[in-house]
């Protein structure tokens, strides 16, 4: 283990009602690292993410973020600690303008009021289309623009980690690859770590990151970036043929 571990998940169990979805799941994520999580549907990827950000209660195990056990905190407190979230399906606030969507997380953080203008400038430089439409309603954006907005909304408060759930879903290929490049750039230049749940192999191999394969709520194997360098090879390694 490296010294600068940012997020550490240990033996996590969680689920809905009487069914357990996540079984003794463990992994860790370092500063400015990009880590993918993949696997078939219904295997618990989204449940895992929601457990980490606090939308689903943890049954046992621990979630350590910046050397602090955050598993007892509610989701808003975890967010304040520095966890950003880009939900599946973007979940843009349709009644807010684009700029209000971006700034919304800042309004709950007193400490971030200063310097927010510069941060906003950075974000607009990163995603120029958002500046163009900053006074439009969130609902008026196309899918690809909404995905950029969802990332911008997570970036605004300088979180140490951003968790993305299926960022390529329903997005045209050119924007998917643009988003991939943006994530890499951010992890390099801003030291932001990314945890990406993804099923799009091309996108995974573009990110050049390690990847955890999930099956039935458990961590099956971890593949390194080099193993996933080509799409064909990745496909082979990530397939869960007949168990």
């Amino acid at each position, binding site marked *: 283990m490296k010294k600068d571990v940012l997020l550490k998940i240990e033996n996590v169990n969680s689920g809905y009602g009487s069914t357990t979805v996540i079984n003794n799941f463990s992994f860790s994520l370092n500063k400015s690292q990009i880590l993918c999580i993949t696997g*078939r*549907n219904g295997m618990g990827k989204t449940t895992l993410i929601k457990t980490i950000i606090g939308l689903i209660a943890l049954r046992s195990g621990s979630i350590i973020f910046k050397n602090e056990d955050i598993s007892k905190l509610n989701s808003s407190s975890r967010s304040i600690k520095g966890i950003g979230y880009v939900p599946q399906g973007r979940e843009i606030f349709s009644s807010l303008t684009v700029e209000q969507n971006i700034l919304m997380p800042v309004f709950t953080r007193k400490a971030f009021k200063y310097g927010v203008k510069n941060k906003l400038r950075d974000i607009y430089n990163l995603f120029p289309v958002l500046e163009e439409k900053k006074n439009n309603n969130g609902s008026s954006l196309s899918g690809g*623009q909404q995905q950029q907005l969802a990332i911008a909304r997570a970036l605004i408060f300088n979180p140490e980690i951003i968790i993305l759930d299926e960022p390529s879903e*329903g997005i045209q290929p*050119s*924007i998917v690859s643009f988003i991939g490049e943006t994530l890499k750039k951010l992890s390099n230049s801003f030291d932001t770590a990314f945890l990406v749940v993804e099923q799009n192999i091309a996108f995974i191999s573009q990110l050049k990151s390690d990847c955890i394969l999930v099956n039935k709520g458990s961590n099956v194997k971890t593949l390194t970036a080099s193993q996933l360098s080509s799409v064909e090879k990745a496909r082979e390694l990530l397939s869960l043929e007949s168990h």
Partner: protein
Amino acid sequence: MATILETQSLTKKFGGFTAVDEVSFNVQQGEIRFLIGPNGAGKSTFFKLIIGNHEPNSGTILFKNLNIEKLKMYERIKLGMGVKFQTPSVFSELTVLENLNLANNLNQLINIENVLKDFSLVNEINILAGDLSHGKKQWLDIALATLSKPELVFLDEPTAGLSFEETEKTSEIVKKLNKQGITFVIVGHDMDFVKQTASKVSVLHLGKIFFEGSVSEVLSNNGVNDIYLGIS
């Protein structure tokens, strides 16, 4: 082969914005036609115009040589169409079986077991559809659209959120149903799925048909690359 669906100068405006701009489009019987294009190109609007969710501002829609643009959605469906919308919209408070029974809109004798087998839903027959995994919801949704063996089926993003294995399986299902006589028009972004499945691809851009051709023609077209695929 006969033309099953044809639109002539189909136009839809929202306020000052023209979402679908004089699109003339036709599909032959037996095709698996893909409709791709950038986000906001008008694919979903176009698709909703054909099935009757939106009313066009002008233009005509011919299905089996019948003018259908004045018909309500359910009337068009009864003529022999099937639909799956973008987000999986199965009836979450009904069981899988009840969902399938509901989809049997002509009260035909249908071998439900075969359908369940085709869509890998055999073990979930009495489960509430809301409790299915995302992938199984997608399949159930396609099953609903195709159950009563319509001649033409529209699928909007049938593989969104599916793993590549599930995508392959979906492709097999579509091809199997196609062999049984169902013509497909599929909207989607998943180029893997397109490559595995399509017999012909139409690219929509800014409300117009930008390019039409086979998969390889589309992939090698520079214009399509610029506006959509982004492979440099």
